[in-house]
C-alpha cells in the first residue's frame, strides 16, 4: 500500500511537470509529417516541438526506464506506465520518435561496452543521433542469417562491402546498426557480427525505394570499402546473431503497437460504412449484408486481438514467463490490419480507387495508399510465414 501511495505521489509530480513543460500545441495528435525524429539534421515542425524535445530529453523522459547515467530517467516499470498514462491523458505527443530508443538502445544497454553506452545510448536518449537498421539484403529476406555483406578486419578497422535493403529513413539517418558477415566459413548463424556504422563514412550511399503505395521511407544502402573502427562491434565477434534476435523481438512488438495506435485514432468501419453505404430506412441496418458481415467479423477479431494483448501484458506484469506471443501478435495484428484497410477501401466503393487528383478527398487518397502500404505489413519485420514457422517450432514444439 505504501508503494501505491508513492506511485500516486509520483503521478502528481509527473502531472505537474507535464502541465508546466509540455507546450499547448504539442497536446494534439501529430500528423505523420509533424513527427520529430531528431538527429544531426533534425527538423522540427515548430519551435514548440523543438523545446518539447529539449525539455523531455533534459528530464530523461525520452527514454524513461533507461539509467540516468545514459540519458534516461531511471524510472521503474510502474513509474514509466504512469508517465505514459499521464502523457496520453493530456493528449501530449511523444517528444521523440526513434529507432534508437525502440530497438537499438535496449540492446546496447544489454550487450554494449561501457564506452558504447556512454557514446551511443546517451546520444539516442537526447535525440542527437538518428539511427537506422541494416538487416535485410536482396538475397537475405526471410532467411536473414544468409546475409552476405562482409566486414573484414584490417588493422584497427573493419572494411565493409555489400548492400542492405529496407533500411528505413537511411537517407535521413546519422548512423546505421548492421549485421555483417565476419566469418564466411562458419555455419551461417555463427559468422555474423553486429556492427555500428556512421553513415557519413566514405563509401556509404543510399537510394530510396518506391513502394506500391508510392514514396516510402525505405532505402537501399550500399557499402563500398567502408572503414569502420573495430570498437564499433557490439557483442562478441561472430556472436551477432544473439544480439540480432534480441532486437528482432523488439521490432515485432513495435510493428503491432504502431498499427494498433494508428488504428485507434481512425474512424470505425461502421462509421465509414454509414457514410458511404448508408443504413436501410426501415431495417436500420447497413444496406450491404455481405459487407456488414465482414465488417462485424473484423470488429470482433479486433476486439479479441486487443483482449489477447491485454491478457499477455497482464501475464507479464504478474511475473509469468513470457511465451512467444510477439510472433502471434505480429502475425495476427498485421493480417487484421490488412483486412481492415481492405475493408475501408471496399466500403468507399469507387471513391476507394483513387490515386491522385481532385476527384478524391485527401482522406480517401490516404486510405487507398494506406491499404496498399498495409500489404507490406505481413512481409516486413519477419513475414507471416516466418512467424508461423516460429510458432510451430517454439510454441507448439513441432519437429523440424
Amino acid at each position, binding site marked *: 500500500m505504501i508503494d501505491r501511495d508513492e506511485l500516486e505521489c509520483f503521478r502528481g509530480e509527473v502531472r505537474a511537470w507535464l502541465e508546466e513543460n509540455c507546450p499547448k500545441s504539442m497536446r494534439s495528435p501529430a500528423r505523420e509529417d509533424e513527427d520529430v525524429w531528431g538527429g544531426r539534421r533534425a527538423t522540427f515542425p515548430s519551435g514548440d516541438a523543438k523545446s518539447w524535445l529539449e525539455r523531455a530529453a533534459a528530464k530523461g523522459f525520452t527514454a524513461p526506464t533507461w539509467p540516468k547515467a545514459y540519458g534516461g530517467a531511471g524510472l521503474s516499470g510502474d513509474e514509466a506506465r504512469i508517465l505514459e498514462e499521464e502523457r496520453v491523458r493530456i493528449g501530449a505527443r511523444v517528444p521523440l520518435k526513434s529507432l534508437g530508443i525502440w530497438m537499438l538502445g535496449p540492446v546496447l544497454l544489454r550487450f554494449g561496452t561501457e564506452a558504447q553506452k556512454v557514446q551511443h545510448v546517451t546520444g539516442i536518449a537526447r535525440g542527437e543521433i538518428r539511427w537506422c537498421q541494416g538487416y535485410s539484403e536482396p538475397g537475405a529476406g526471410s532467411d536473414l542469417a544468409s546475409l552476405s555483406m562482409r566486414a573484414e578486419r584490417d588493422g584497427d578497422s573493419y572494411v565493409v562491402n555489400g548492400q542492405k535493403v529496407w533500411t528505413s529513413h537511411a537517407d535521413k539517418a546519422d548512423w546505421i546498426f548492421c549485421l555483417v558477415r565476419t566469418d564466411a566459413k562458419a555455419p551461417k548463424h555463427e559468422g555474423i557480427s553486429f556492427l555500428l556504422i556512421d553513415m557519413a563514412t566514405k563509401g556509404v550511399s543510399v537510394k530510396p525505394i518506391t513502394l506500391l503505395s508510392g514514396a516510402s521511407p525505405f532505402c537501399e544502402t550500399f557499402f563500398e570499402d567502408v572503414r569502420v573502427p573495430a570498437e564499433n562491434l557490439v557483442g562478441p565477434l561472430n556472436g551477432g546473431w544473439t544480439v540480432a534476435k534480441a532486437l528482432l523481438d523488439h521490432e515485432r512488438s513495435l510493428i503491432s503497437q504502431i498499427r494498433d495506435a494508428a488504428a485507434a485514432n481512425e474512424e470505425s468501419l*461502421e462509421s465509414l*460504412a*454509414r457514410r458511404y453505404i448508408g*443504413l436501410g430506412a426501415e431495417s*436500420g*441496418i*447497413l444496406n450491404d449484408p455481405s459487407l*456488414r*458481415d465482414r*465488417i*462485424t*467479423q473484423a*470488429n*470482433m*477479431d479486433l*476486439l*479479441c*486481438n486487443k*483482449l*489477447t494483448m*491485454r*491478457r499477455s501484458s*497482464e*501475464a507479464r506484469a*504478474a511475473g*509469468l514467463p513470457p511465451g512467444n*506471443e510477439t510472433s*502471434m501478435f505480429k*502475425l*495476427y495484428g498485421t493480417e487484421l490490419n490488412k483486412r481492415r484497410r481492405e475493408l475501408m477501401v471496399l466500403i468507399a466503393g469507387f471513391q476507394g480507387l483513387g490515386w491522385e487528383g481532385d476527384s478524391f478527398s485527401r482522406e480517401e487518397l490516404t486510405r487507398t495508399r494506406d491499404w496498399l502500404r498495409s500489404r507490406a505489413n505481413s512481409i516486413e519485420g519477419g513475414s507471416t*510465414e516466418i*512467424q*508461423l*514457422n516460429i*510458432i*510451430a517450432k517454439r*510454441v*507448439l*514444439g*513441432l*519437429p*523440424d
Partner: protein
Amino acid sequence: MSFVLTEEQESIKRTAKSFASERLPITNLRTLRDTKDAAGISHDAWRAMADLGLAGAAIPEAFGGSALGYAELGLVLEECGRTLAATPLVSTVLLAANAILLAGTDAQKSALLPPIARGESVVAFALDEGARHAPQRISTRLEATAGGYRLTGEKVFVLDGHIANALIVVARSAGVDDAPDGLTFVLVPQGTPGVTVTRTNLVDTRNAARVRFDNVTLPASAVLGTVGTARAHLDTVLDRARIGIAAEMLGAIQETFERTLAYLKTRKQFGVAIGSFQGLKHRAAALFCEIELTKSVVMDALRAIDENRPDLAQLASAAKARATDTFLTVTAEAVQMHGGIGVTDDLDIGLFLKRARVCEMTLGDSAYHRDRYARLLGY
C-alpha cells in the same frame, strides 16, 4: 479485471480437471451412448460435483450456492468441455438458475435454488420453437384462467428436458408471436398433466427433448416473479448461458488441439513425423492463434458477468461467435490431420466434431451473433 488466474482459481481448475477426468471422462459419454442410457447423464457424478460446490458456483450463498462467480464457473465448464462431460451445467446452472435468480420472488429462489446447488434438482429451460434459435419468436401461449393459467404450445431443443424435475418455460402471455414484450417465465413441474416430453437423440449425445403443452393447467404461483416481465431478464439469462457454453467450447477446443498436436508429433509417414511437414505446421500455428484469441474473449466475457459490465451483450455475442467458429475450424482440421482414423468412431476426435455442430446451434450460431453484434453497435 484480470486475465491471470488467482491461486484460488487455479485450485478450482485443478479440482474440476481431476473430477472431470476421473468421474466424467469421455468413456463415460461413450457408455451412456452405447448402452442407450435412459437418463443420458450420471446422476451420481453430478451430485458428487455439487458436493464440491461446483453446481452452485453462480448461486449466492443465501440460496445454498458457493457463489464462486463466473470466472470460476467458466473454469469448471472448460474442464467439462475437455471430457465432453454430460452434466446439467448449461440447462440448470446457466439457464434455469439464472432465470430463477433474476425473475423469481425470494420465496421461489429459496425453494428452487438450493436443490439445484445440491445437485438434487435438474431444471430445464424451454425456449426455442422453430428450426433455429429465435428468442424473440415465442408462440407458446400462457392464458389466465379462473384459478391460474393454461399453457399451450411446443418447445424444441430443450436441453435435459427429458430428465428435468421441472421446466422453466418462456411463454407468451400477451402480444403477437414476434412481439418483443409480453413474455413470462413459468415453472412446470415434472409430471404435470398435459405435458409430453420426448427425448431427442442428438448426434453428439447431448441431452435434449421436445416438449408439448396441451392445455396444461397451472396454478398462479407457477409464474416466476410477475407476468409479462420476462423480457427484462431474458437477454441476461441467455447471455450468461452463451458465455458459459463458450467456456465449455473453449475446453473442448483446447483438448482437440492438444490431441492433434500429439498426433502430429508421433504419426509417421514418408519416414518422418507428419508434424514436420510445413503445410500442416502452418495450419497448426494458425489454429494456435485462433485459440489464443478465443481464450481471451471467453475469459473477458466471464468476467463481464461477474462485474456486471454494460457491454455484456456485445461480449456474449463476440464470445459465442468466436468460440463456435474456432471450435468448428479446429475440429474440422483435427479430423483431417488425423486422416483415416480421424473419421472412425474408435477415436475420440470425431466426438468433438459432432459436439461442435451442436454447440454451434445452441443459443444462436455465429451468423446470428454477428448480426446481433452489429445491431448492438448500431449498424
